[in-house]
Each structure stands twice: as C-alpha cells, then as structure tokens.
C-alpha cells in the first residue's frame, strides 16, 4: 500500500496564473436556457478562463514561477529541481520541463522532467519532488502544475465544455529539517483509463487525417472528434464517490489523526455535485472546504494550488495550518496528502495577457 511519509520538506510559496479571457457559462448557447441553468447550478461553474490558441500551459506556469521566485527573493542558481506536471505539453517531444528550466534561467545542475497526470497531479507531484529532495542534497525546487484543457474541448459537448478552465501554478519547495513530514496515500486503477480520455494523437491512435478530426454525435448535446476530451460522467462520478473517502480515512487512521486535526480540506475542483457529495460522505464542515470552481472551473492539476491562492491566501500567509489535499480523476489516479504549512508566500493570482 502506497502510504508513506516524506520528512524535511516545506512549502515556501504558492502562486497561480490564469489567462485574461473569461468565459461566462451563462452565455453557453449550445443548450437551452433551462438546461443551462440546471447545469451551472449542478457543476457549480459560473465563469472560467480560456487561453487563446498558441498560449501553452508552460507560459502560464512560467509567469507563476518567475514572479514567485522574485517574491521569495530566491537565488535562481540554487534551484536544482523542476517538475512539470501536466497533460498539455508544449510539444510531443521534448519534455516541457527543460524549456521552463531555460526560460526561468535555472542552472544546468537542475533536474527537470515532466509528469503526465491530471486531477491527481498536484498531490503526486508533491510526493515526487518531496521524495527527491528529502535526502538533503537538493535544497530548493519548483513544482509546476496545470493544464490548458479548453483547447481540446468541443463546444458542442455539454458534458465537457462548461466544466474546464485553464490555469498554471508554481509551488516553491525547500528543504527544512524543522518541518513536519508530508503524509501520503496514493492509488491507481488503470482499468478506468478510458473514463477521461483524448483518444487520438498518441502512438496507440496516431493522428489520422480522415478519422481524427471527424465530429461524431455521441448522444444528445454531445458532439466531438477524437482530439477532444471525452468524459464518461457517471463512471468518473461513481469512481470518485467510491474511492476518495476510504483513501482519506485510511490516511488519517494510519497516522492516528482525525478530521478534527485538519484545518482545511482542499479537494481537486472536479464539479460541485461531486465535491459536495464527497464532503457530505466525510461529514466535513463547509467552512473547512474551500471552492474555486465558481470562478475558474475544473483546472486539472492546477485546481488545488489555485484554490489555495484564490480562497485561502490570507490564511496560509499568516498562520501555521494543517491541510489535507486530495486529487482524483483521470488515470484513474487519486491520492491525498496531509501537510503542515507555515507562513506560505502566496501572491495574488497573476493574469496572463495573451
């Protein structure tokens, strides 16, 4: 069982960047007004940010990271690891992390690589960077997470289009022997790989001129091609309702903690109905469960740090807190982490003018 702890790691800062253009779901005219209002109420997404074509996730992460490094007054030559967690890379090859290492003027002694995960990506990313830094050789690192999902989403797909927003984030990680360990419970069920999928463009279904771009009717209100994100709503829903609660309970039990020991639960922002159902399953006080869905939608691996920056900035800046972060979705992959924070540098959300 992948329950483990990583000592000596502290989160020094968290920042987020979103594109300037704001899409309002009340203007989504692909469906009737009545259906639209029910949908908005159920998924909880009123507005979200869309990147213009040509803007990449790494562009957003760069702005978040560049500003955060300056806010922290970090010496760039001391940053020896950069991990980019995303499923919307700049190129098929090479990895995007290298481009960011160069753009951020990080030294050549820096480890840089990509991790391909979505909804669970922030929690997984923390475990990877934490594990690599815990031995004490690397003192400063950057975890960059996010996705541009709107480019791959069909406007004529009511199950996906209103849901997703674009965002990039940066988390500054430092070695700190005085900090409490981060405690993880990470899980996977690859049998659900097709519950959230972009089927074409990889090696399995190589891009095909005739079939990849062809729009097909999947069901009422759902038209898409093979480069678009396909969501099996009920499958993802049942998976999350089945797995997240036991994952969190197991983690708490393992380290002899209870729900009352946690100051805030920050969940991946999937959709309001799903997140609220999980909150009710765990019997959590709504005050302890911040949401950023309403203004930013589902932003994949950016959703947890974005929620912290958007909804908890003043709390994490001025206090020592115990947080439980939980991500779940595409893969299917899910995981939770319990960590202590102290006076995190958390600047306001940066806007990318593309």
């Amino acid at each position, binding site marked *: 069982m992948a329950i483990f702890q990583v000592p000596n790691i502290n989160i020094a800062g968290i920042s987020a960047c979103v594109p300037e253009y704001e899409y309002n779901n009340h203007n989504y005219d692909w469906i009737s007004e009545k259906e639209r209002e*029910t*949908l908005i109420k*159920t998924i909880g997404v009123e507005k979200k940010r869309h990147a213009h074509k040509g803007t990449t996730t790494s562009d957003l992460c760069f702005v978040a990271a560049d500003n955060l490094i300056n806010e922290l007054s970090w010496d760039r030559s001391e940053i020896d690891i950069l991990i980019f967690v995303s499923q919307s890379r700049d190129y098929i090859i090479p990895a995007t992390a290298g481009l960011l290492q160069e753009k951020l003027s990080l030294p050549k002694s820096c480890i840089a690589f990509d991790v391909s995960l979505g909804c669970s990506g922030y929690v997984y990313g923390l475990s990877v960077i934490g594990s690599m830094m815990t031995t004490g050789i690397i003192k400063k690192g950057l975890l960059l997470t996010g996705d541009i999902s709107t480019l791959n989403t069909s406007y004529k797909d009511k199950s996906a289009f209103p849901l997703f927003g674009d965002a990039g984030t940066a988390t500054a990680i430092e070695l700190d022997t005085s900090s409490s360990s981060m405690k993880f419970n990470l899980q996977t069920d690859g049998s659900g790989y097709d519950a959230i999928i972009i089927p074409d463009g990889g090696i399995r279904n190589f891009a095909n001129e005739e079939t990849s771009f062809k729009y097909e009717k999947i069901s009422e209100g759902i038209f898409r091609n093979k480069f678009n994100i396909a969501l099996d709503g*009920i499958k993802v*829903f049942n998976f999350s*309702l089945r797995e997240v609660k036991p994952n969190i309970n197991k983690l708490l039990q393992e380290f002899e903690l209870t729900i009352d020991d946690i100051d805030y639960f920050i969940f991946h922002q999937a959709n309001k*109905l799903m997140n609220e*159902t999980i909150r009710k399953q765990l019997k959590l006080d709504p005050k302890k469960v911040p949401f950023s869905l309403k203004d930013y939608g589902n932003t994949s691996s950016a959703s947890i740090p974005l929620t912290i920056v958007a909804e908890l900035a003043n709390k994490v800046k001025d206090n020592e807190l115990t947080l439980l972060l939980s991500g779940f979705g595409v893969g299917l992959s899910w995981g939770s982490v319990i960590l202590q924070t102290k006076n995190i540098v958390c600047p306001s959300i940066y806007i990318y003018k593309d």
Partner: protein
Amino acid sequence: MNITDFIKKIEEEFEDLQPNSLAPSDVLTEKFTWDSINALIFLAHVNVEYDVEITAEELIKSVTVQDLYDLVNTKYQNKG
C-alpha cells in the same frame, strides 16, 4: 428503508418535483427531466443517503419509481 420515505426524499432532492407528486407506478420520464444531469444528482443522492452505488446501465433499465426503489433497496439490503 421504505418506499414512502424514498419518494419523499426524491421529491425534496429535485426542484422540478412538488411534495406528494410521485407515486410508485409513475413512469420516471413522464414526471421529470430524466437526463444525464438529473441522473448524476440521483446517484449522488442515493450514495449519501443509502451508501449504494448505481451504474448508468442499471439506471437506464429503471422505468418506474418502483423500479428505482427496488434497485436501491436491493443494493441497500445486500450491503449487510
């Protein structure tokens, strides 16, 4: 669980439904918009209320309110 209670909770859950408007023999599609969103709301409702999981296929097979109750109740009883 019993069907009266089951129906009362569904009526509370869905805005389209008035109290005491549903009967066990009612056909679901005739009573309210039985679309994918409402299906998800229903799944969430039975998950929190009865701790049972229902698949899309099972939901599609349910025609009447009684069918829906039987589906949930069977799972609820089998849970032990």
